[in-house]
C-alpha cells in the first residue's frame, strides 16, 4: 500500500451530475486540482446536512473515478448508497449545489512493479474504487479479473465502461437475482486457480474482507483490502477509526483506518478482534 495522501485540501465541490443507478446514486463533483492527486483507493470526506444540520461529522466515500483535465479542471465521481441521514442527504443534492469535500484522503492500492494477474473483489458499493484501480493495473500490463457481489441485483454497481476495463467479470447475488447465487467467497477460490491470480484487491463489508483474507491466506497470495471503519474526522486527529493491525515486527497496534488505511494488507488486520482489543496488542491491558 502507498502511504497517506498528504495533498488533501478542503473545497466546496459543485455537483455536476447526479444519476440514480440501481440502488445507488452516481454523483460527479467539480473539484479543481483535487482530482490531480487522487490514487485508486483514496476517499473523500463530505459534510452532510447543510447549514443548521444536527449532524456534526463528515461521511467518508470511496472515490469511484477522478478525471483531471489540467488547468484546474478536475472531476471526482462517487457512488453513494442512500442509507442513513448523511448519505441520503448527499444523494438528494441537485446539480449546481455545493458540498464541502476534503480529499484525497488515506492510503491507496499498491500497484505491482511487474505485470501481474489481479483479482478485484467488490461488495455492494465497494466496487466503486476498483474500476479506477483496474484502469491503472491494465495500463501497467496486468490481467484483471473482477468479482462483484451483493445481496441483490440492484446493489451490483458495474457500469458499462467499468465492465469493459476488465478481462472477466463474475457477479454473485445472495438472492440469485443476477449472476451466481451466493457470496463472492463462493466463487473466488476457483477464479484464483483458473486465472493463476497473484494478488487480490478488495473493497466491501468487513465480513467479506475477512472471508477473502482467509482464502488468500490458504492460497498463499497477497491481499490488499480497503476497510470501512466508522470515522469521525477522516484526517487522523480523532482516533475513532482504529483497528488492530499486526506490523512487520509482529506487534499488533491499533492503527487509524483513515491514515494507515483504508487500504491495508488483509493478512495483517486482526479481523477476529470484533469489539475487543486482541490480547498482546501494544499498550493493551
Amino acid at each position, binding site marked *: 500500500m502507498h502511504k497517506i495522501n498528504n495533498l488533501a485540501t*478542503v473545497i466546496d465541490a459543485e455537483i455536476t451530475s447526479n444519476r440514480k443507478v440501481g440502488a445507488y446514486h452516481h454523483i460527479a463533483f467539480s473539484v479543481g486540482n483535487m482530482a490531480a492527486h487522487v490514487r485508486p483507493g483514496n476517499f473523500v470526506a463530505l459534510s452532510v446536512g447543510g447549514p443548521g444540520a444536527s449532524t456534526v461529522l463528515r461521511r467518508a466515500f470511496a472515490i469511484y473515478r477522478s478525471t483531471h483535465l489540467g488547468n484546474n479542471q478536475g472531476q471526482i465521481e462517487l457512488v453513494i448508497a442512500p442509507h442513513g441521514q448523511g448519505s441520503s442527504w448527499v444523494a438528494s443534492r441537485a446539480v449546481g449545489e455545493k458540498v464541502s469535500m476534503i480529499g484525497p484522503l488515506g492510503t491507496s492500492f499498491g500497484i505491482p512493479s511487474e505485470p501481474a494477474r489481479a483479482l478485484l473483489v467488490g461488495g455492494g458499493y465497494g466496487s466503486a474504487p476498483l474500476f479506477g484501480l483496474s484502469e491503472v493495473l491494465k495500463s501497467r500490463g496486468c490481467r484483471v479479473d473482477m468479482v462483484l457481489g451483493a445481496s441483490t441485483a440492484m446493489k451490483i454497481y458495474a457500469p458499462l465502461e467499468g465492465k469493459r476495463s476488465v478481462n472477466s467479470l463474475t457477479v454473485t447475488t445472495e438472492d440469485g437475482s443476477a449472476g451466481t447465487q451466493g457470496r463472492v467467497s463462493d466463487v473466488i477460490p476457483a477464479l484464483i486457480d483458473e486465472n493463476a491470480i497473484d494478488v487480490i484487491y478488495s473493497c466491501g463489508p468487513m465480513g467479506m474482507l475477512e472471508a477473502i483474507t482467509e482464502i488468500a491466506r490458504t492460497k498463499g497470495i497477497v491481499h490488499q483490502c480497503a476497510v470501512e471503519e466508522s470515522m*469521525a474526522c477522516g484526517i*487522523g*486527529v*480523532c*482516533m475513532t477509526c*482504529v483497528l488492530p493491525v499486526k506490523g512487520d515486527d509482529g506487534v499488533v497496534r491499533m492503527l487509524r483506518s483513515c491514515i494507515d488505511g483504508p487500504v491495508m494488507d488483509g493478512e495483517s488486520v486482526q479481523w477476529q478482534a470484533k469489539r475487543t482489543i486482541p490480547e498482546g*496488542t501494544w*499498550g493493551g*491491558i
Partner: protein
Amino acid sequence: MFDFSTTLGSSRFDNPILTASGCAGSGKELSQFFPLASLGGIVTKSIMLKPRSGRATPRMAETPSGMLNSIGLQGPGIDLFLENDIPWLQTQGVRIVISIAGETVEDYAVLARKVRGVSGVAALEVNISCPNVENRGQVFACHPETARAAIEAVRRNVGGDFPIIAKLSPDVTDIAGIATEVVSAGADGLALINTVLGMVIDTSTMRPKLAGKTGGLSGPAIRPVAVRAIYQVHQALPHVSILGMGGVSNGQDALQLILAGASAVSVGTATFGNPLAAVTIKSELEAILINKGFNSTAEAVGYAHRAD
C-alpha cells in the same frame, strides 16, 4: 490597537484559540491544512505513563448536534511522546500545552517530573477525568479529595512557577466546589469542560453502540453545559484563568465562553467537521471582539457577569 493576546496563569498566548486535547492528533495531521502557529496554542492528546491501546471499537457514535467517543486514551506513553511528537511541535513555532492523564496519583507525579524540563511548553493541562485504578475506577475529577490529590502531586513535582491547568469533568454535583479544591491544591487555571458521560443504544443490535458502552458527549449539544460551568466557576473564582471548551464551532460560540469567564477557548469536535475550524473561529472571534468595541480579549473575559 486591539490586543488579541491572552494569559492562562503566567503563560501568554498570542490569541485565545487553542485546539482541544484529543481532537488535534499530534498536531502534524492538522498542519497539512494550516500553519499551527496561527493558533494561540496546541493542546496535545492526553498522554499516559505507558503505551496504551485505548478501547476497542466502535469508539464513536454520532448524536444530535454532538458525538460520543470512547477512545480510552490511546497513545504511545510519555517517553515516546517526548521523543517523537514534542520535537516536531517545537519546530512549528506554536505554543504547546501538554495534557497528561494518570491512573494513580503516583502516575501524575511521574508524568509531571518527565514534562518539567521540556522546553517550549506553555502549560500543563492535567486531565483528571480518568478512572482511578486505586479507587474502584472512580474518576479523579468526580471527588474533591482525589481531584486534589492528583493536582497536588503534579504541583509538587513540576516546580513552583510552571502553569498547571486542571481539566474538570462536568459530571459532578458541584463543579465550583471541585474547582475551588484543585485551585487550593496548586492549579493556576482550570480547563472546563471535559465530555459529558453518555450512551447510545444501537437499535439494530439492541446493545450499547460503543464497545466501551458509555462514552463522552461533545459538540454543540453540550455548549450550554460548558457556558454554565464556566459561568459558575468564574463567579466562584474570578481570579483563576479558565480555558473553556465544549461545542464551540464558530466565533459567536467562542465569545459566549469568553463572556462567561474563559480567558481562552479550545476547539475540539468542530475540527472533525472542518479541519480549518480553529483558525476560522479565531478570525471570526477577532472580528467580533473588535466590532463590539473591546480593546483586548481580557476586557471581554467574564463580561457577562457585569452589574447592570
